């Protein structure tokens, strides 16, 4: 088993392009993800064609009283260009008693944003009305009631969670790619005949599979670890100190993905077909499992059901649980169990298919 395991590593190191691509891509990918950490809040550029600069900045102060959104000053030309080039989805136009949203494309945040701006406008309107009809000066709005929101844990109390989920989801998604692409090697070994050569050697099949699969698992674990290390030390994203929990989740996730790989290798016969199948499987799994957008926005029951079947969903859930909610292993049993169970089922079916395929091939 270790001989096979070691050989796969030697082979990996014999292909410098592959190795460099592998490491380089991880680095670049994570770096881009890290760009993800640049902005903490959603910024909305504002412009006005009727208000003076002073009035505009008064409005900005009023709008920026709450910290959910950040309104910044801009002008129509810049905003127009940004939206046209798809660099922004929307902008806010301010006027004395009206506002105008300039929208290029819909965004998940926009309905909350409109609600927020509209409320402020209606409050201002009402205050003005009252102060006019009673002939009193400016009314100070007191804060008699305050809403305080807290997360269950300290880490959960930041505004970073959505982005954290994206970073974690993307890292896992990326590792799915690497693992599946590397596993194409299994199909290639069958084509070149080295696989057969190993079968009629005294090496048992169990050991042969174990050696191969362990290799892919380790590559996957290393890649995710590398990504997390870069994020932690070069970018400064805190992942907490639940190393054990994070480790267990990563290993279980990678196991499930390697099993998925076995299923694919059993189902799809040629490396050429895998080139097409892998991205489709990886991407649809990521979409269904909520790596691209939060699953809460999905209301279709079929999709929600399918999401339950996606290993990546449990991977994200487990990682978020360990990092943000400070959960211990026993509290993470659900995602861990789901990952292991999926892994075992897929592995079983996958190996069976692989064996059936090879039964129809002679030397």
């Amino acid at each position: 088993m270790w001989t096979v395991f070691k050989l796969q590593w030697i082979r990996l190191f014999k292909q410098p392009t592959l190795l460099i691509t592998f490491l380089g891509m991880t680095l670049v990918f994570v770096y881009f993800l890290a760009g993800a950490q640049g902005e903490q809040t959603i910024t909305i550029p504002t412009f006005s064609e009727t208000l003076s600069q002073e009035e505009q900045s008064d409005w900005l102060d009023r709008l920026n009283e709450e910290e959910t959104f950040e309104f910044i000053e801009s002008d129509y030309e810049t905003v127009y260009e940004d939206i046209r080039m798809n660099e922004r989805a929307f902008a806010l136009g301010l006027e004395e008693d009206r506002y105008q949203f300039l929208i290029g494309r819909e965004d998940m945040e926009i309905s909350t944003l409109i609600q927020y701006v509209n409320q402020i406008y209606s409050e201002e309107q009402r205050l003005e009305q009252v102060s006019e009809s009673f002939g009193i000066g400016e009314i100070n709005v007191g804060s008699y009631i305050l809403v305080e929101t807290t997360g269950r844990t300290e880490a959960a109390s930041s505004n970073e969670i959505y982005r954290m989920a994206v970073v974690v989801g993307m890292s896992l998604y990326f590792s799915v790619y690497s693992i599946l692409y590397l596993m194409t090697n299994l199909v290639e070994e069958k084509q070149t005949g080295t696989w057969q050569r190993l079968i009629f050697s005294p090496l048992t099949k169990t050991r042969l599979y174990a050696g191969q699969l362990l290799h892919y698992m380790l590559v996957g674990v290393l890649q995710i670890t590398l990504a997390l290390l870069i994020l932690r030390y070069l970018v400064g994203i805190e992942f907490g100190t639940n190393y054990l929990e994070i480790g267990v989740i990563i290993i279980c996730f990678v196991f499930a993905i390697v099993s998925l790989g076995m299923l694919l290798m059993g189902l799809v016969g040629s490396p050429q077909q895998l080139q097409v199948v892998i991205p489709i499987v990886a991407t649809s799994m990521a979409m269904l499992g909520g790596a691209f957008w939060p699953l809460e926005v999905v209301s279709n029951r079929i999709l929600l059901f399918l999401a339950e079947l996606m290993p990546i969903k449990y991977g994200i859930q487990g990682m978020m649980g360990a990092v943000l909610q400070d959960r211990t292993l026993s509290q993470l049993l659900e995602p861990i169990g789901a990952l292991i169970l999926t892994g075992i089922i897929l592995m079983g079916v996958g190996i069976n298919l692989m064996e059936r395929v090879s039964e129809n091939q002679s030397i």
Partner: protein
Amino acid sequence: MFSLIKKDTLILTRSRSDLTELLLMPFILIAILGLALGNLTLSEFTINAFPVALVQGQSIDRELEDWEEVLENRGVPDDTIPLLTSQAEAMAPGIQLSTLLNDDEVAEWIQVVEYASNEDALEALDEGEVAGVITIPDGFNASVWNAVMFDEDETGVISLEVQNFDNVTTDIIRSVLSTYANQFNLEASIAVATEGGAEASGLSDDNYGEITTLTAADPISSFQYYTIGMGVMFALHTAPALASRAFKEKKQHVFGRLMISRMSPLTFLGSKMISGTIITFLQLGILFGLSTLIFGTLRGYPLRFWIDLGMLSLAFSLVVGAITSLLTSITLYSNSDASSGFFGGILVTLFAFVGGSFTPVEQFSEALRSIGNWTPNGAMMTAYLQLMQGFNMSEISPLVTRVAGMTAVLLVISVGLFPKRRLD
């Protein structure tokens, strides 16, 4: 040349599974997208009502009793106490809030579950049974009354405890609570300032604004956005898929045979480019066509739009063709399928990410978006979006020119890399 293209197309049509994968599988993704995001539109998005725990402090009767005591202690004349007490009861925010939370309109989103103790509620939160815990603490009303009536520096704090700070359910609960709090603060302030003169009125539901787009066209929906995103990503995947077929040809010595037949190596490369272009174009056509027929993605656009769409798709197909020939060169040069397959596959994913296929990247950083506009898929995606936003061709053309430039550069590199001697 034509015979080569014919051969490539023929091989693909013969192996039906390959063709299905290349042309139709992206459609599966679009279907997922359509079902997941199809109803996520600007004005409304549906979310199933989710349970939220509510923990109330003292009962209102108890608080009113305490309040009377407070009034007495303040030396309020006995005969005004009942008046102030009933005033207090009328404006008790605790009552208003629980009425609000059980209101039909709110109930569409939030389903209130009352818990007796904070501990029970938090446990339910940890178990994932409720999306958040709203706590109205003991003496909440009293604090507000004190502040409003006696101008004391006190605040009633409604606390909301959630699992994740930044997800959709949290946003909804928080928005319901803070809307209420803002409104109360506003009305109470007005009442104080006008000494009860102004009639309390709920904020009007008037819209003080409008939503406009840059041109007359509708804004782009999330579904349209992702359709384009997935479309450009999978078109890009065509390139490594075809390049790996070129490698297979080399393995089967077809390549060598072609080379010794005095065919120019560039003809071989050119045929790969054209096959890539044709297949990508078909792929995009099927994708946009089927998606419009089934999900109505691009319904209602005029003929002119479709012609422009075709032109853009052609430009994009050409750049994918150029990438195909580049990857073919790399594959034949390095004599390995794996590295270019891996490279192609992973690079495509990276490009797709930066280009905004998965999620609008500008919400991460604008720099990322600007980089994205320099990837072939990102630039084309922006161009498609511009077209759908109703810009005319003259405003779109800079990006298309950029893509055409990339096509030329890629072609030059692929010709340079193409192994002209090694035929083994």
